[in-house]
């Protein structure tokens, strides 16, 4: 029941915001309260969650189309719990930022944001393929509007690209779901058996690769991340991209063990290329958001490396890094927005020297930046370390590429920090030193605070993403995370590789 509330409470409030003639202030206030309530609900779920149990928790099932075995089936696994939490926190920050900035047409805007919150929570909790698809689409549609209506000058081009790319991905996924579900006779993720079809697998993988995005499916990314309003970029790169990584874990790897091990090399290669490619482009991006956008591409490559390492180290690290990157990139996009509000530009050529007289901005940006470049002792370091240690076991070359990318990450993040904060005062930087206001601090400091807390205890997530049933069995623990998801289908990795 709690899961359903997590999904539909924001949607219900969205309807209220749309229907009632609320003032600007009231619409924003209601939306902010609802998104904070979502965080509260998630904390409730976290407190009541039993990390020792291996089953689905807070689950609910209602038959929908009984002849096709489609049902409304939702519930939380430990790793989905963390992603729902990420969603709640980032959405709350995004809504708060929008309230702070005061968006035009507030009722439409905040309704869409709340609807989006519910849809994303649905994606992370759906246990039925068609329901998953429904939530996935429900997540994309508000985004089209949010980018297309409230974006910057080039928003139309950005939206068209975004729509075309994601539509292509969605259609592929829909086709894959229909074929897969009809083959297996059910759409329920807990009941559906593994498949060995490479084509169906590729349908899912390409859909998720576009959403993530993975190289070379990232054509929509630079424009969408630049032209959206900052809080929408924060949601896009912080949360929505994680839906793709979640799909890799929950569907691609868990349901297609055979194709996964056949095609793993190719996917790892794309992920590794994306990691280096994104880092290199981030290093030459001329503006703040460009750096964050391309670093998102790189980070999604890194997370995909961890996922397709298909071992416990990699998967645990990937879940941790999803949360890390979600918080980091949301914080960076919001900070970019705050910088842009002061200077009306994000171009490094016009920025610089903002640290002087703005200690709060400098401290927050510097802290976020150094966590983003994964300085050891940060939670991002823990995530990247686990991911690379995991993928190292698939082949040392992947980890070497990852290590090179970490050095590149240091280069582009430091360039971004210096470009904003240090050296000569840029021509666009106003004389009047306007530091972060308390309201702005209240938006970003919680994100950074969570990151710092996670830095002190990254194992809180990485140790609690997949339940540890039998830690003593060495062989089993090697594939604990994978076997766990696969076991939902009562099939182990080895058996499934033999089945036709």
């Amino acid at each position, binding site marked *: 029941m709690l899961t359903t509330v997590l999904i539909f409470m924001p949607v219900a409030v969205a309807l209220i915001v749309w229907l009632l003639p609320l003032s600007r202030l009231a619409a924003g206030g209601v939306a902010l309260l609802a998104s904070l309530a979502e965080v509260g609900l998630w904390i409730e779920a976290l407190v009541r969650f039993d990390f020792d149990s291996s089953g689905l928790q807070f689950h609910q099932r209602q038959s929908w189309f009984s002849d096709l075995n489609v049902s409304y089936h939702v519930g939380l696994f430990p790793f989905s719990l963390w992603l729902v939490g990420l969603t709640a926190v980032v959405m709350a920050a995004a809504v708060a930022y929008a309230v702070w900035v005061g968006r035009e047409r507030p009722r439409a805007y905040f309704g869409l944001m709340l609807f989006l919150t519910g849809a994303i929570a649905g994606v992370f909790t759906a246990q039925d393929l068609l329901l998953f698809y429904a939530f996935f689409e429900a997540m994309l549609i508000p985004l089209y509007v949010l980018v297309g209506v409230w974006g910057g000058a080039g928003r139309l081009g950005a939206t068209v*690209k975004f729509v075309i790319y994601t539509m292509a991905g969605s259609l592929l996924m829909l086709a894959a779901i229909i074929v897969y579900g009809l083959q297996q006779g059910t759409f329920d993720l807990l009941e559906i058996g593994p498949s060995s079809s490479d084509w169906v697998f590729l349908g899912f993988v390409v859909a998720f690769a576009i959403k993530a995005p993975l190289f070379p499916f990232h054509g929509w990314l*630079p424009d969408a991340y630049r032209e959206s309003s900052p809080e929408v970029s924060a949601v896009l790169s912080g949360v929505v991209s994680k839906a793709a990584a979640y799909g890799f874990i929950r569907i691609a790897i868990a349901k297609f063990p055979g194709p996964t091990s056949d095609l793993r090399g190719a996917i790892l290669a794309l992920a590794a290329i994306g990691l280096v490619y994104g880092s290199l482009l981030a290093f030459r991006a001329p503006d703040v958001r460009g750096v964050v956008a391309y670093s998102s591409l790189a980070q999604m490559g890194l997370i995909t490396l961890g996922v397709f390492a298909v071992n416990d180290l990699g998967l645990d690290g990937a879940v941790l890094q999803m949360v890390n990157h979600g918080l980091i990139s949301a914080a960076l996009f919001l900070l970019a927005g705050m910088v842009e509000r002061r200077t009306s530009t994000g171009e490094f050529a016009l920025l610089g020297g903002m640290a002087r007289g703005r200690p709060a901005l400098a401290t927050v940006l510097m802290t976020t930046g150094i966590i983003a470049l994964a300085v050891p002792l940060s939670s991002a370091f823990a995530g990247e370390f686990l991911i690379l240690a995991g993928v190292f076991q698939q082949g040392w070359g992947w980890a070497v590429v990852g290590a090179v990318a970490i050095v590149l990450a240091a*280069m582009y993040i430091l360039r971004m920090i*210096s470009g904003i904060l240090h050296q000569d005062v840029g021509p666009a930087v106003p004389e009047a030193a306007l530091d972060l206001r308390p309201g702005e601090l209240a938006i970003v400091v919680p994100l950074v605070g969570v990151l710092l807390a996670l830095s002190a205890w990254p194992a809180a997530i990485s140790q609690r993403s997949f339940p540890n049933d039998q830690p003593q069995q060495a062989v089993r623990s090697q594939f604990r995370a994978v076997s766990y998801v696969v076991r939902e289908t009562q099939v182990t990795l080895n058996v499934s590789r033999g089945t036709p």
Partner: protein
Amino acid sequence: MIWGAWLCLASPLAAALLITLGGNALSRRGAGYLATFATFVAFIGAAISFFSLLSHDAGDRSHLSTGWTWIAGGSYHSGFSVLVDPLSTMMMLIVSGVGGLIIGYSIGYMDGDPEERRYFAYMALFVFSMLLLVQGGNLILLLAGWGMVGLSSYLLIGFWQERHSAIAAAKKAFVMNAVGDATMALAFFILIQKTGSLDFGDVFARQGFLGGWAINLIALGLLGGAVAKSAQLPLHTWLPDAMEGPTPVSALIHAATMVTAGVYLIVRTHPIFEQAPKIEDLAAGLGAATLVMAGLIALVQTDIKRVIAYSTMSQIGYMFLGAGLGAYANGMFHLMTHAFFKALLFMAAGIVIHALAGEQDMRNMGGLRELMPFTRWCFLIGSLALVGIFPFAGFFSKDSILAAAMDRGWYGYLLWVAGLAGTFLTGLYTFRMYFVVFGGQRSAFVREHFHHEGHGEGPFSMTSTVATLAGLAAIGGWIQWSPFWHPVTSWLEPVARPLVEPANWMEWTSSGTALALGLGGIWVAWLLYGARRPRPVPRVAPVESALVHKLYFDEAYDLAFYRPAMRLSLLLGRFFERPLIAGTGRELAEGSVDVGRGFSRLQTGLVRTYVLAIASSLAVIAVVFVAVR
């Protein structure tokens, strides 16, 4: 008393957080006092750990305390734990003791800087990071401290953030250290794969299971981290640039503590290095090469801080030489005395720089002998200790490393010769600096810019630190005189048993030769720079220009790594990303419009066309059904 170690670790972190969060609520002075106080609390914590270890038997001097599981994935996990053993307590004492002195000095040195609070927050953060590095109870925490000291070094080098050169130097230092972090991380991946753990105990106990190539790669990865942090060949180019930071920073981070972390790493992980003797020899060889190279470059530097920086590289070369040869205690002993006399030299140089309105170019100095007698004597003590003149600190620690080299076959003798050459160079460049700065006539610049602060040669916070360090540099080496007494070696014995045991004649030969060569260097420096009528300095133009350009390492790295990466990123952007990826959206959009236009032509509005289409479709479907049946 393990809580002493936790106190030691927590107190500087608490100070850093308090200063950051306190903002304007804390006065600038208050921030300085808070940071100093916290570091001395850390020193007390370290002392508590030291004395409680002392009360245990030699065999029972390793205590691990785990707070919580810090990082975990799959079956691998590491706790957030502190290790108290002879090696870590020795480092804790050095770091918090010297750190406390230098932060206290900073109260005077940074007085009046508008961003003093930020400075002291960074300094406290650095002390925390360094303590984490030396106290970390497993390799991953060691790496965490390793990265964090790199971060604080970055922050402090770039402290004056409007200066382009400072920001560039800070970035360079961070990126070169990130290279070292990356090679260490790769070594850890091998360890995780082979042993499933990063705890010191597990890793060192299971060393036998590791194959030959694996152990060599692991040692190589660790060595990569060590040379990056300790500015040894080939990752040394960041250290001279790091002198852009405030002088106390150079003293604390880039001389006394952080840059010697590589030596600590080798000693800490010596069971791994001992399994990979080739890598050990490589470490010693790199140390020897660095000490000679840095000594040569120091001869032509004109910036007083850069001369001291190169001498730091050179001295760490000695430590690497010792640690690589297996003379762990000697390396650590030199680390300790070096912390005293190098911090002293920097602090004294800082007083000079302060008195000359920030001037660092030695060519503008001269004749400060009478103007700053106190500083001059302290600087002299530091210089003598650096050169290794009896009875100053460097004599006891450096010569025992050289003696150890004699006990290691022909390779050892090769290194021994390099080390002795380094002694001569040390005498030469150190006293060139001393004579140029303090000797001779007062230069025009000095006459114009010299000013007293009104109360002697500096505020009490500065002079007291310098005096304390001068005392330590003078007598700090007496705690160990290898042929006669060796408490440092026996203290460290439970952690790192030395591989070499030089005979007494080796000690005497090394000491005698090194002392003679050091004095020779001083004598040559006197002839060229100190005598009333100095001889003309012999010059060999191509050599000099190569040395002035620091043997072209910067240029080579620029050409080999930076420019290709920049070029690649530009080319990728111009010829791949823009036309092929970012452009595809528009092409897709236009393509779909074209397709739509094509289909729209079918909508003729003529019923006969539609009927034809329906009929022919039905026919096709019928044929298909019949055929499939």
